[in-house]
């Protein structure tokens, strides 16, 4: 589909906007609907558009499988790590209030880090699943 002129030009303009929108949803989880999970899915839909217009091989160069596996596990680690840090600070698992001087600031930092972990994991696992299936059904 890369020879489809109109689709190519329009997706060049749209992909950065979709990625920025995904990050907006990621960081505004506490003000408007959204959060890590939704952001991850939106981000992967931007990559999906890229795959459909420019092909699977170009996308594999942009996001190699190794990097995706790394970010998937890093997201889980971030999530669990935050819990363990609060455990070491003398609270319960995932008790954000102890992460900073005041309980409010601690809650804020905790939720942002947790959402970041969720977003990273969801985006990379989604893309890994998609890449795996897309390679399997390719017509030679």
């Amino acid at each position, binding site marked *: 589909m890369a020879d489809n002129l109109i689709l190519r030009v329009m997706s060049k303009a*749209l992909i950065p906007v*979709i990625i920025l929108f995904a990050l907006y*949803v990621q960081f505004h989880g506490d003000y408007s*609907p959204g959060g890590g999970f939704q952001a991850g899915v*939106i981000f992967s*839909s931007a990559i999906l558009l890229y795959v459909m217009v420019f092909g699977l091989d170009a996308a594999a160069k942009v996001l190699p499988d190794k990097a995706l596996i790394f970010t998937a596990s890093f997201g889980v680690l971030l999530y669990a790590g935050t819990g363990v840090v609060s455990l070491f600070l003398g609270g319960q698992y995932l008790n954000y209030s102890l992460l900073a001087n005041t309980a409010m600031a601690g809650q804020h930092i905790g939720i942002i880090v947790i959402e970041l972990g969720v977003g990273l994991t969801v985006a990379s696992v989604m893309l890994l699943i998609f890449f795996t299936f897309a390679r399997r059904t390719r*017509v030679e």
Partner: protein
Amino acid sequence: MNILLTGAAIAIMFTMLLALIRALMGPTVFDRVLAVNMFGTKAVLLVAVFAFISGRPDVLDIALLYSLLNFVGVVAALRLVQRGKEYAQKKLEEDAQ
């Protein structure tokens, strides 16, 4: 004002119903995808109207998102149709051999 917007929401839903009937009837697969595309556009407008009825403008983010994802969805559906045709042709050639 809420009465008018509720009326508008009902009118939009009626249009969505018409599009849905076309999506179910559509003789070719392209008619169906076209109807689903129209359904998506109407859903964006419905979400925007709903944001004003309920007085929660935050919901507009969902309308923004839906207008972007509708496009990705249509492209993905078309890609699937194209794939299906390539696959069917390959199958035919294999059977002929």
